[in-house]
């Protein structure tokens, strides 16, 4: 069942939508919105299709599709550079994630009227880039889409952003592109060292790299991609970026874009240079743990809603990096789960914050109080996201974080303890936030507030469903992810230790 066209469609729908929107005159904002909505729905359907049809029993890369771009010229040999698409168990959930978040993003940004044409064009470009990264099987195009995903961000934040946007936008763009410089160099080196004359990832994966080389160039991928994943101490772009960005962009950004980083560490780091993992993954784990606790504490101090969530993203991405750092099946599995979980959850957060900000024009927690009276649905959605993020069982966050902790404790009990602790601190600031802003005596200043618009409500729903679904029945996700994680090179399989305990098994 290699319907690779489905993947091609993943790219063509948003790109085509961008072009189509470009052709519609600015005079008809509604038409533009409708096109965007149609595209979003199609993408969501497509993503769900890919996710559902992916056969985790076979595992491996499916939906394989390859169009040669340049080959057999100069230093490029067979399939030198080719648009090679494919999805494995790790990419499939992330594709789904992107579909969901993009769909919700379209709904949330329904009420943008200032040059919404340009907005949606850039938005679609961004989505294209993200999809591309998840499904590319060729280093060149992987990087192509990786940059493409960062590129529109600048304008999106610059034009439609809010607080201190020039600084935020510039910092975000420069930091991310600067980090990608490392990835770029790494790609060069890998290509040359491999001597295969192709950027095709399957080929490069097969290559056995010299350990010294791998250990030298692994950090290029680890840090280069890690920055995008909010790797401590290169994370500060993310809170500022989130705060500055318009709602939908924050959603995509925290929800999906930051996952590209972790995804890149898996795709380029672990898969291509497994020889380097032994040396570097512990470092990643330490940094991830620091990020987890550090982000949590920073979030404690913030009063701006978006800053709280921005730092909580740092903290949660810290869990992802922790999970990767463990380099055992459960940890990595948890990392990918956390990517999905955090993606949906934080997207929901930002969607809600945006909905509030559009009315209240402030995000200062201390300004609010008891707004549940005016915005019950807002509070319910927000609360759900919060509970998910503090790892409440039954919601997606718990499944992911639990895996991460289990994976971590196997190798580094202390770090696992720190991780669990930071999860507890998460509870502190989330509840503090809810208590201050949503509950308590009603602050009459907000008489004017009204509840979510139906578009926001729909967007919120689109995000709530996966949160609950994954929390209650994670099996579909885990099956797919595990099918890929168990194949990852250098990842130790743990669990089922009882097998070698005579006393238990009789």
């Amino acid at each position, binding site marked *: 069942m290699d319907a690779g066209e489905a993947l091609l469609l993943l790219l063509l729908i948003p790109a085509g939508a961008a072009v189509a929107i470009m052709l519609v005159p600015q005079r008809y904002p509604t038409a533009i919105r409708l096109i965007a909505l149609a595209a979003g729905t199609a993408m969501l359907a497509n993503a769900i299709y890919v996710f559902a049809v992916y056969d985790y029993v076979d595992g491996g890369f499916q939906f394989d599709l390859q169009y040669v771009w340049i080959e057999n010229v100069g230093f490029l040999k067979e399939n030198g550079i080719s648009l090679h698409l494919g999805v494995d168990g790790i990419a499939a959930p992330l594709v789904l994630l992107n579909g969901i978040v993009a769909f919700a993003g379209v709904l949330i940004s329904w009420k943008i009227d200032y040059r919404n044409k340009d907005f949606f064009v850039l938005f679609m470009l961004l989505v294209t880039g993200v999809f591309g990264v998840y499904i590319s099987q060729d280093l060149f195009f992987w990087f192509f889409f990786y940059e493409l995903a960062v590129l529109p961000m600048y304008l999106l934040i610059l034009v439609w952003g809010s607080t201190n946007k020039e600084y935020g936008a510039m910092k975000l763009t420069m930091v991310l592109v600067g980090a990608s410089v490392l990835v770029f160099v790494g790609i060069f080196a890998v290509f040359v060292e491999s001597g295969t004359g192709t950027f095709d990832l399957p080929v490069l994966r097969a290559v056995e790299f010299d350990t010294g080389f791998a250990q030298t160039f692994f950090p290029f991928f680890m840090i280069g991609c890690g920055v995008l994943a909010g790797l401590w101490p290169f994370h500060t772009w993310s809170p500022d970026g989130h705060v500055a960005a318009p709602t939908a962009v924050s959603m995509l950004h925290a929800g999906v874009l930051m996952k590209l980083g972790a995804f890149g560490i898996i795709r380029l780091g672990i898969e291509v240079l497994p020889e380097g993992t032994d040396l570097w993954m512990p470092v990643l784990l330490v940094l991830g743990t620091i990020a987890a606790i550090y982000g949590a504490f920073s979030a404690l101090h913030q009063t701006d809603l978006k800053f709280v969530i921005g730092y909580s993203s740092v903290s949660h991405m810290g869990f992802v990096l922790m999970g990767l750092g463990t380099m055992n099946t459960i940890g990595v599995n948890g990392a990918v789960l956390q990517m999905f979980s955090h993606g949906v959850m934080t997207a929901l957060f930002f969607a809600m914050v945006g909905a509030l900000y559009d009315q209240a024009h402030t995000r200062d927690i201390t300004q609010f109080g008891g707004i549940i009276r005016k915005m019950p649905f807002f509070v319910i959605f927000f609360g759900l996201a919060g509970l998910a993020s503090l790892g409440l069982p039954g919601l997606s966050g718990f499944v992911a974080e639990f895996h991460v*902790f289990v994976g971590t404790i196997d190798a580094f009990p202390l770090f696992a303890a720190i991780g669990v*602790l930071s999860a507890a601190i998460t*509870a502190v600031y989330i509840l503090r936030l809810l*208590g201050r802003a949503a509950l308590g005596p*009603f602050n009459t200043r907000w008489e004017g507030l009204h509840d979510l618009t139906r578009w926001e409500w729909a967007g919120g729903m689109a995000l709530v469903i996966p949160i609950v679904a994954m929390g209650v029945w994670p099996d579909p996700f885990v099956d797919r992810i*595990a099918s890929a994680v168990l194949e990852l090179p250098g990842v130790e399989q743990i*669990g089922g230790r*009882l097998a070698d305990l005579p*006393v238990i098994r009789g």
Partner: protein
Amino acid sequence: MFWIDHAWILPAIPACAFGLLALSGRFLPRQGDWLSILAIGSAFVLFFFVLESHLDSINAGLGGIATTGFDWLTVGDFTLRIGFTVDSLAIVMLGVVTLVSLMVNVYSTQYLRHHGKPEPRYWWYFGVLSLFAAAMLALVLADNLLFLYMAWEGVGICSFLLIGFYYERPSAVEAAKKAFVTTRLGDVGLLIGIILFWRATGTFQISEIIEAAQAGRLNDQAQIIGDGYLTMATLLIFLGAMGKSAQVPFHVWLPDAMEGPTPVSALIHAATMVVAGVYLVARLLPLFAVAPGALDVVLAVGLITALLAGVIALTQTDIKRVLAYSTISQLGFMFVALGAGAVGVAMFHLLTHAAFKATLFLGSGSVIHMTEEQDAQRLGGLWWRMPVTATTFIISSLALAGIAPLSGFFSKDEIFAAVARSESDVVLILLGVAAFLSAMYMARLVIITFFGAPKDLAVIRRAREAPATMLVPVIILTLFTLFLGFFALDQVGDAFGFPGGINNFVYFPEPEDFAFSATVAAATGLVSLLGIFAAYWLFWGRNARRAVALRRLQPAMAAVLENKFYFDEAYQWTIDKAILPFGALIAWFDRMIVNDTGVNGPADATRYSAFWLRYHVTGRLPDYALLMIVGIAAAGALGFLLRVG
């Protein structure tokens, strides 16, 4: 044998009820409270089926332990399971939970009405109640630690929601937050402990873990779990138990939790949720038994809690808070029992305590509901305004005080017996003091609430006997309070179908016989009476001046007591002076060092370098030519160095 294998239906029903209520509660007739009652009621009924088939299986010699479940998710050969197990321990809890929940549900239909019309979010209240029931039942039935943890957190969040039910009140929000966070702190330990056990044994199945641990201890072949490791993990788990069961120093949340509606306090913060900790330790007692020193810790914590809480309870004036502290101290008793290794006894006390404490709370609820006043200082002389309530209240207070032949007497006596059997006399004496205190504060509460002259006429004028829907549950529970104790006796047990009485029924790890020793019984009875007398001597009517005098005699002491040993202050100080500042520090570091220096620094450096570099393009042609020649000369020289010389 059907029901014992399908016990998962019990939690399933209220869970569905919650779903329905959450989605459609508002629109149902009577906002769907009947739905919740129906669900819990059916669960209660089913409980008897389960019990029955359980007894069958025991009599069939099947050991009465049945587990069912399904795999939740699988990574390689790492599997997470949703599993249910039914054994006598679970049965006991099932009974308690379903019974009290049902009573509280019924009671609440009245309590949550203000002058006959339901309070706002009435439907939500019942929804969460049934969700709580579901979670609690799941917790009881869980056969592996992971699932248990999930349910554990589930009940936690329900408690959060219910404490914060009146979220217009900042105090309620604060209390909810406090409760959740404090227990959460314990849960950190719990989770780490669970994972540590997984790390050692590779499973979450309680039975297998116990097996492995014991094996590791018994045959000294390569120890699967080292002693230190075992103790650490066990105590970490106990941390979770302490959090949930509000043991010192985690007890601070429970009194504040009284901000919730009183029925909730009865259900969650007296009868069921708070005893989850006890239940957990009881479940894992074999681990504690094999882990060196673990049991001693449990005992110590329990003892300290029992004493401290008892003392504090003496000084409180808010009815519910007194009851809360008494709950804490009674939980301490249970932990003492566990520490003495007597599971059956602990469970028995749990059972009886559930009954009388629920009664007390519901009673106090009636008082509060009727008088709209919960400060005991301003009540008094109520007994003739609401006699039934008063009677039930007094009965269960006596039970708590441990007056024969009420249920409390039996259970507490059991505890003393167990302790006397296994522990040193010091413990016994301290426990006696605790018992004395409990008798004393209960008596004090009764005295200042129901007897003496009414202190506030407005209040007393408002006071009426509670309506039937509130009385009936109270009365039913009172009956249990009255007669539950006798189930400890073999004869009664045989009559009711579980031979050997209730402790014998709760056999785990091995049966314990009801050891009635006249001396102990006499001692405890005496202690209780002394306590009651002390209360009378200090607080009855005009005697109150003695209390005042006492306070004047020891002002510092009194202050310490009335401020509850400054626990809250200590916590507040830690938060305000340690944690939040640390957060601020991190935030500052993040801004100043990481961002403004680490990120902006290089950028600014580049821009400034650009600013200075600009000046090399002077606009004067000779300078341009000069630079060219310099470049050439340099290149030439370099060339000679590199290639020729």
